[in-house]
């Protein structure tokens, strides 16, 4: 596996585990834990989106001369996920754990079909197209360190 594929797929797994922890707390009707876990999950997701939108996608677009193809759809799907994340936050604000679980199921499928596209195609293609993948990964690590945890 290429460097970008490994680094970014690992970050997907990190987000997945945070998602599962928050969902489990919701299923156990533990509202305070769910709130904490959800915040961790939401900020991990936002960090991941920012790494892609500000470093990986522009580098991919520069290397391939293509900004209307795969990265455009990935950005659109980030927007869709942000909307469901907002609905999750709203459900927690209203103490509505059933609504939270329903939205979480929706997000899981949306998120995973997105991850499949990235891990199966976009990341391997980035590894192939980028001549400076190490520098792009460093830029992403800096973005990750720079944004609030």
């Amino acid at each position, binding site marked *: 596996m290429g460097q970008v594929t490994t680094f970014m797929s690992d970050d997907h797994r990190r987000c*997945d585990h945070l998602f599962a922890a928050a969902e*489990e707390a919701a299923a156990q009707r533990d509202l305070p834990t769910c709130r904490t876990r959800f915040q961790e999950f939401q900020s991990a997701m936002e960090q991941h989106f920012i790494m892609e939108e500000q470093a990986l996608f522009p580098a991919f677009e520069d290397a391939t001369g293509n900004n209307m*193809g795969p990265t455009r759809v990935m950005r659109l799907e980030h927007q869709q996920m942000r909307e469901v994340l907002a609905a999750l936050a709203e459900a927690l604000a209203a103490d509505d754990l059933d609504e939270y679980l329903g939205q979480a*199921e929706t997000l899981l499928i*949306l998120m995973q079909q997105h991850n*499949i596209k990235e891990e199966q195609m976009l990341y391997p*293609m980035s590894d192939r197209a980028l001549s400076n993948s190490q520098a792009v990964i460093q830029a992403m690590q800096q973005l990750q360190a720079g944004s609030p945890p």
Partner: protein
Amino acid sequence: MNPPGLSYDQAPPFSVPLRFFLTAPWFLVLAAALLLWEGPGIIASRWLPATLALTHLVVLGFMAQVMLGALSQILPVVVGVSIAYPRWIATLVHVPLTLGTLALASAFLGSGPVGFQIAVGLLGFSFSAALIAFHRALWQAPVVTDTVIALRCALGALLVTVALGLLLSGYFGWGGFSLPILQVTNLHAAWGLVGWTALLVAGVAYQVVPMFQITPLYPAWLSRGFAPVVMALLIIGTALILSNWPLAATVTGAALAVTLITFAARTLLLLHQRRRKIGDPTLVYWRVSLISLTMGAAGWLLTRWMPGWPPKPAVEWLLGILLIVGFPVAVINGMLYKIVPFLAWFHLQAHLLGRAKLPHIKQLLPETPIRRQGWALLITLLLLSTAVLYPLFLYPAALALGITGGWLGVNLWRTAQRYRQALANNAALDQ
């Protein structure tokens, strides 16, 4: 400019896969009606015309319907290539598949050579359209992943299955040539169940098991090696059977069974290691499916190697139940409950664009009916297996199968209704 072959176009219209998904469950109801009509006598042999009609109502009417419908949806996601002219292709595949399945079943039940001739025409047309569209897409895949390899093998196996099926139907429809019927039928079934079905399930499982259940990934040796090994064994086994070398063919068959058990056992282990701890109803379908596959493959092994346990009709029926109703029907049923409500949500989101609050997935298809229908499927499986030994159980088994299929059909239909309702409400708001 897109790099060659890469298209991230959004999914095909909802109607493209949905027509297959809404049709399929009713073929289980038809199969149940046939079982009731025929009664316990049908268990006498797997070679009775009624048994063959029943088998094809399930494998073509239910399984192939959903598998072909789902591929048009799955390929853009896992392979990055969408099908050209999706609505046309869907119509050209769906209509002749539905009518061809009915023609084939009625041909087995006594409508004679004309029935087989009609079935050859309709099914030949449907599968040709599907195979051309899907193969075209798959060989354009920009990145060759383990899933792409498995899907290519699965579609290669489908080609062999369909060719052998058309050959058999042609033999019954027109005759005029000689055919080793028994061997060709066994090969047709092996390529269909072990090649096409198991490899498609595996290719999809590599993605959906780790992603949706949040489990570790499949080990690379398995996800890379499984499909090529199965294909190689199928090819070798076919050559040995056709060159009349039965002992060597049995050894190859045993190797295939062990390979299938390895895949099923490893997947069960992954499910056991999942990080998503909440009870997901579709998890039960995966487990029932994989346990059935393990038992079916192990049963096949035992019947060939244990002295004093020759393959009897009852054993063959039991293996058929495990390898058709247990393994694929269960996992397809579970996957439909993931796919249909998600697609309804996805297309609603695209249509409504934030103008109205969207129902979430559990509102589009609540968990309670999913769980209850899952129990019905499990009971069906147990009753069918019992009926092999105690034929009178066939009547409750047939009823259970009809209830299971109808219930699945109603659950999916209601989801489609909620989707249409949400769209209609929004249109009313616009006015």
